[in-house]
């Protein structure tokens, strides 16, 4: 579901202008998104030719049951109106969401992203993984729906034939857009100042060898998804079994009818009226394909993240071995 690495370079990157977007997203999750809650927000920026530039963002409050009368749209409109007064770009170019161990492929995400992309072709959804970031490297990925998936969403044709026609597999649902951070000179001065003022001992989380808890959690989520998938497969199997049983029944019925008709003819009686077979045997409902696709996509994302993680850890383990080998 993520385009393979070789094709990523063909996709034009999206630019993050200035550091405030990254920092704001990090802060938002840190302050408001404790536990496994998902935080969301809107990305603002502009589209220059066919290049997307994200210049600012603002967070969305959490959905709590108490503020049932909270009007999201109104909040957005007010925020954008106010930001326009201070010359901040007020074009909605996308949205961001935090994720928990890489689980973000869901119907909700698809719908939201579709509505954004429908309005602006280049809009992206930024997925921020705070747990992976805490492990040592900023994990911020931008995704966009592939044009094929966009078409399907437009038609709202999620049946099996529709998907087969558009040849959308779980692998080409989303395409990853590489992110490039662009800083102006002033921000560079600021960064220089920060580095001077705060002697940050650069954290070496990245080189830490402990991996089991993270692996456990990831595998747990993967297993849950695989369970969902297997349930889905069972459903599909029952469906196909039912269809074939029905076919058989239809056949038998037609045969019996013909037999009877020949019998009647031989006895000189009028044949039985032709009945509408399709009304008698209602074909069973095919299970919706979209959910399976989403689950497959999610499983794929999990697998990718886990593989990245294991490859990093293998590298670290070999380094540790080399270090130990030196000593002993």
């Amino acid at each position, binding site marked *: 579901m993520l385009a393979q690495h070789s094709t990523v370079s063909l996709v034009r990157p999206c630019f993050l202008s200035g550091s405030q977007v990254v920092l704001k997203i990090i802060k938002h999750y840190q302050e*408001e998104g404790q536990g496994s809650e998902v935080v969301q927000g809107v990305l603002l920026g502009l589209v220059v030719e066919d290049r997307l530039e994200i210049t600012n963002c603002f967070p969305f409050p959490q959905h709590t049951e108490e503020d049932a009368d909270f009007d999201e749209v109104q909040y957005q409109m007010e925020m954008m109106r106010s930001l326009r007064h201070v010359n901040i770009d007020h074009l909605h170019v996308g949205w961001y969401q935090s994720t928990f161990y890489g689980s973000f492929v869901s119907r909700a995400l698809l719908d939201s992203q579709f509505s954004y992309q429908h309005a602006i072709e280049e809009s992206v959804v930024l997925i921020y993984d705070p747990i992976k970031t805490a492990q040592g490297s900023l994990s911020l990925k931008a995704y966009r729906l592939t044009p094929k998936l966009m078409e399907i969403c437009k038609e709202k044709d999620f049946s099996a034939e529709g998907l087969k026609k558009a040849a959308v597999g779980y692998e080409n649902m989303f395409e990853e857009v590489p992110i490039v951070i662009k800083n102006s000179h002033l921000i560079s001065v600021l960064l220089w100042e920060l580095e001077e003022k*705060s*002697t*940050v001992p650069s954290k070496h989380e990245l*080189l830490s060898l402990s991996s089991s808890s993270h692996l456990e959690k990831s595998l747990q989520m993967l297993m849950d998804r695989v369970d969902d998938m297997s349930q889905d497969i069972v459903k599909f199997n029952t469906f196909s079994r039912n269809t074939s049983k029905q076919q058989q029944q239809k056949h038998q019925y037609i045969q019996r009818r013909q037999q009877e008709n020949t019998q009647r003819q031989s006895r000189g009686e009028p044949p039985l009226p032709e009945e509408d077979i399709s009304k008698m045997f209602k074909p069973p409902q095919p299970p919706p394909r979209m959910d399976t696709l989403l689950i497959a996509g999610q499983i794929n994302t999990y697998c990718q993240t886990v593989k990245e993680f294991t490859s990093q850890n293998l590298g670290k383990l070999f380094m540790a071995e080399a270090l130990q080998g030196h000593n002993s």
Partner: protein
Amino acid sequence: AAAARVHEGATPSPGRSRPAVVKIHPVVVASIVDSYERRNEGASRVIGTLLGTIDKHSVEVTNCFSVPHNESEDEVAVDMEFAKNMYELHRKVSPSEVIIGWYATGYDITEHSVLIHEYYSREAQNPIHLTVDTALQSGKMSVRAYLSAPMGVPGKTVGVMFTPLSVKYVYYDTECIGIELLQKTRTSPSRTNGLTSDLTQVAGSAAQTQEMLSTVLAYIEDVLAGKVTADNSVGRYLMDLVDKVPMIPAEDFETMLNSNINDLLMVTYLTNLTQTQIALNEKLVIM
């Protein structure tokens, strides 16, 4: 509040023993610089509200937003409605943040600042005034914080004095990592940086450690050659460093290493298997 890491940032501490310290998150200063870059034509500086939390001895600034204002020689106008509205909107997202002061870009404190400070005194007790020198008048982007105190002869002319406070930069752990990545944009010629992945990151970290080790080694060589006098405290740190590498008997280490590698390989195998499985499933079902 999440665990925050405090780093020493030296700015001239006030002569009197005011315990107040201002802790700033880098997101605030980055937003200020961005607002400055977007200021209206003809405006020489931008101002805005600072949001954050207060506790007994220090003030932590975690957010900010700019407020439109007009300044001329003799008068200053601040859009207070706007400030109130924005604060309400921000409160919806983070209800724990309160107005703790205001900021202005520029190096000096002008008379207009006094007026604006008065307005903010109505919104918050003891508001902090932050100046960010975006025009680099002082040669670098200095960030200073002030508290106002009344001065003068009571009953006669009373004025306001701004006393400086010490400024510290505070980071969440994840902010640290974000900043590290952003620092990399300083070195690239187009001031850009892509987000790297997997092994390149580990390699980068290892390279950094290597650099640091070579600096330490160079120092040790110098000491041994007599070029630099040995420093006992440094020597103690070095002892700690060497001790940190655990002395594990070779077979134990082998077993540990192998079991870890086996775990990781097994997980990789399982994930590959799963991916093949779903690919197969796709083909079967779509058929």
